[in-house]
Structure formats: C-alpha cells, structure tokens
C-alpha cells in the first residue's frame, strides 16, 4: 500500500530550488490539495517573479507567469473571465508585500474569490539575498550588511495582521513548514484556502513561513531551527481571520 507518493498535480520536472529550500514542500502541499479536491483540470496557477518564477513548470494545471507583484491582478482577470476555474497565485515576500502590495491589498479588498499562497522567507532569494519587506529587525542581508536598521529602513510588514483589517479578506492564516507537525498544519490551511474558493467563500491567503538556507547562510537543518527561534516569534502562527464559518451559517 502506498503511504506517500508524488501528487499528480506536480510535474516530473526537477525543482531548481537550492538544497533544503522549503519552496518544494509548499509546492507539494499545493499539488496534494489540488489532487485531493479533484480540481487539477480546472485550476489555473499564477507564478510570480522571484525564486518561484518557474513554478509554471512544476504544476500540471494550466499556468501563467505574471509580472513582478502583479499576480493578484492577473488572477483577478482570470477569475473574472472564468469564475468556474480555481485560480491561485504563488508569491514570495518581495513580490507580494513590496512591489505588489497594492495588488495584494486591493484583491483582498475586492474579496476576489481566489487563493493566495504567500511564501515569507524574509529575503529576496532569486537575486541573491537582499533585504525583503519581511526581513527581521537586525537581519543581515546583502543590502542590510550591518543588520536591518529599523531607524533607517523601517519595519517588517506583517501581512496577515495587516490584511485582517481589510473587510474583503475572508480567510487568513499563517503557517510554517519547518517540522512535520507544522507541515501537516500548513496542508490543512492550504486545503481550506482552496476549499473556500471551491465553495465561493472568497479571498483566502495562507502565509507560509519558509526558509532560505542559501541566503540566510545556514545549513538546511539550522534554517529550520532559525524559523522556530527567530521567524515564528516575530510572525506568530495561527488563523488571523476566518469569515468562512459565518458564511456557512448564513
């Protein structure tokens, strides 16, 4: 009996991510959810610009590569064109919380019935490790070589907390993928986010605290620890908003 195998919604193309990068785990969770909900044939994924720019090669559903930060706007177009399609974006922190902040907030405000998977690893990975909108105070990066000085360049943006104040947002949860228990919780959250869309419940965003061993300068194992020690204390896990229960009662 097969206990675990590659989900169908994931292609056989080898992932280009660095060893130990948890992008791959999140890709797999999304694919598992697509399989379990039986929606591969009607799902359209939107890839961002950043490390996951080539996500279009990794999912078996139809895929679109968007301009930097614009995935929620592209998703809006796709969903408005064909509301029966299941539309998700997969975006990193620079893409979603810096250059694409307006698109993020406004797609939430419009309560677009889409699913956003937001990878927060506190750094720009693809370009070689620059300071991200979610880099921690004091975090050393290529463009904050003396540590992120909040007097000089401000504070990290807590996306779930911020969006929880946007009336249109329906489901917001922050999860992590640094251990087996967290991965299982992340899967549940991602499944709910897709299920919400299937049921027409509106805008769902799952923020996944992820790792970047290469640009954090840590081994894959130490990177998982760093999530526990540094990231989760600043970005507490949990459900930040859930209007979907109310919708059921209606």
């Amino acid at each position, binding site marked *: 009996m097969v206990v675990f195998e590659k989900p169908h919604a994931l292609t056989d193309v080898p992932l280009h991510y660095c060893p130990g990068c948890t992008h791959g785990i999140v890709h797999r969770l999304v694919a598992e959810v697509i399989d379990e909900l039986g929606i591969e044939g009607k799902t359209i994924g939107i890839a961002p610009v950043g490390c996951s720019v080539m996500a279009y090669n990794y999912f078996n559903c139809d895929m*679109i590569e968007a301009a930097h930060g614009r995935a929620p706007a592209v998703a809006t177009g796709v969903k408005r064109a064909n509301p029966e399609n299941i539309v998700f974006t997969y975006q990193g922190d620079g893409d979603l919380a810096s250059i694409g902040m307006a698109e993020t907030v406004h797609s939430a405000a419009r309560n677009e019935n889409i699913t956003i998977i937001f990878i927060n690893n506190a750094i720009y990975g693809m370009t070689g490790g620059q300071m991200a909108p979610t880099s921690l105070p004091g975090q050393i990066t290529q463009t904050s070589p003396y540590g992120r000085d909040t007097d000089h360049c401000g504070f990290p943006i807590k996306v779930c907390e911020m969006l929880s104040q946007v009336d249109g947002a329906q489901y917001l949860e922050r999860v992590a993928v640094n251990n087996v228990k967290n991965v299982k919780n992340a899967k549940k959250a991602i499944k709910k986010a897709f299920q919400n869309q299937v049921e027409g419940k509106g805008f769902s965003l799952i923020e996944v605290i992820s790792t970047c061993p290469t640009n954090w300068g840590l081994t894959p194992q130490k990177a998982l620890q760093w999530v526990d020690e540094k990231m989760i204390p600043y970005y507490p896990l949990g459900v930040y908003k859930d209007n979907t229960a109310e919708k059921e009662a209606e």
Partner: protein
Amino acid sequence: MADKVLMKGNEAIAEAAIIAGCRHYFGYPITPQTEIAAYMAKRMPKIGGCFLQAESEIAAINMVYGVASTGLRVMTSSSSPGISLKGEGLSYLAGADLPSLVVNVQRGGPGLGGIQPSQSDYFQATKAGGHGDFRMLVLAPASVQEMADLTIKGFELADKYRMTSMILADGTMGQMMEPVALDYDVKPMPEKPWATTGTKMEREHNIVNSLFLQPDALEKSNLERYERYKYIEENEVMYEEYMMDDAEICVAAFGIASRVAKNAIVEARKQGIKVGMIRPITLWPFPTKVFEKAAEKAHTFISVELSMGQMLEDVKLATKCKGEYILCSRVGGMIPSPEEVLAAIEKANGGAK
C-alpha cells in the same frame, strides 16, 4: 445602411468594443478618456460583462493580461501618463504573445503635462511601448466613425497576430461628437488552443509566459515574433491618400491634425498649389512604401502633428531624406490652425508670405 447615432468618440470606442465581443474592461480614471470607463460601467453589467475599476493602471493592464490568457477579448483604456504605467504590462503581453486592445486618448506631456489633446506619445506607441524588442499594431482614428471601426479592426488584428492593438487617439477625438453607424459583421474569433482555461485532464498544461532563461530560446522567440511583424508590415498597412495624384507637396498627418490639414489643403488647391496628404491610419505598420512612392513627385513633405516632430522622423526614413521637410506642429494641448498649415504649404511652394 444602419441608422446613425450621435456619439462621443470615447463612447464609440466603448460600444464598438462591446459589438466586437469584448466583455471585460479594466481601467483607472484619467482625463480625457474617462467616458470609456463610464460607458463600460453602465453597459457591462447589463450584458453579462465585467467592468472593474482597478487600483492603478498597472493593475488594470495586468487584469487584461489575465483575461487575455484565457483567450477572451479584453481591453483597457487610459491617457498618456497612464499608458506609461501600462508599459510594463504591454511588454509582458508582447512577450507572452497575448492579444489585447489598449486605447490611448493622448494628452499633453511630459510628466503630468496637461489634459488637452496631443499626439506626443507617437514614439511610445510605435517604437517604445515598453522594454524589449516588440511592436504593437497602432491605429490612429480621425473621426468618431473610425474610433469605432478601428476598435473592431483592432480586436480582429490582435487575435489574428496574437499581439496588442493600440488605438492612438487624442483628447479631441475622444470628446468630439459625430454621427456614427455601428453595423458590423464581426469576424469570429480564431481558435486559441494556447489559452489557460484548465486542462480538463484532457491535454498537457498550457503555460502563458515571457521568461526564457536560455539565450538561444529567447532569441528564437524574438526572431519568430519579428517574422510575424514583417508579414504585418507587408499586409496590414492602412492609410488614406487625399489629392495625392499630382501632389508636389505632401502633407503627412494623422488623427485630429489630418482634419485641420485637409482644410488647409482645400484652400491651397484654390491657389493652384499641387498639395495632397497621406494620412497614416496604421502608425505601425507605417505606410513607408506609400511615402516612398510619393517622393517620386513630391519635393517637400510637411508633417503636421501635435508633437515635436515624432512622426516626421518616420516620414524622413520612408523617403530616405531625399526631400525638403517642414514640421508644422503645436504641442502642450495646442492644435495647429488651418492658417498655420496653409502657411507651411505656401512656404513649401516657395512663396512664403
């Protein structure tokens, strides 16, 4: 012959788009094209379409990118500063070979400029819509009827060649009211097997994308695109010739400038001056061969434009700089008067007053 209705140019574009089967419009308010958005906001909900006011021009063009990916007809409209913001999206649309219709009702620039008519986005539309090697089909209407006609044509060409059609109008064309007949036999959309509408588990996944990390693959995609452009340059040029049969002086003008120029040409002909006009309707592809042929008889070319001679460069290129050239232009929202154009014609005729 269908009944004619009195419409503003901007409204004619909007109604023609609906007739062409466009059911998705995304825009952001900017003068002097807001009537298009207002018209769509009223009409789309009544016909099962989607009007959505985006948070920015950038978001609007990316919503267009999303709908275009699904193969449906889609459009956005804006005016000069807003088109600059859309430049990123225009480049991505080109890179992903997506069809779309974009309307630029030009106003004076640069910067915030003004809100009065202009043609100073000619370079931007015909040569530099965004980063990278790409072209847009640029259609320049000179009447409210053409605002509608070229919108229909724009959608058809966009689908045929998988690229963006841009209607390059100006504030006057947008605001002007004229009678217009809206009876069209719209060609059915071509099959779009590349569209991302879901695999239905019946085919390999489709990918809409402009990223090619291998330089040879990127070069190949560019070369293929330019093969298409070459075909378009040979087959899709549109222009109007006015009194060109014996013309020794050739006026070049498009859009509102061509209407002013026509008045001046009529006056000049009364004086016996052999002057005519070539009015490019497609600014890209530019009617190069038509100008080249005109240069066999014409000694002087007068470019009448609402810019600092942006089109004049293409006229010079088309005629290999063999003639004499005069720029007759007003900018910043000003429009040349028929008298100013007539003076230029008289100067070209060797008899400047």
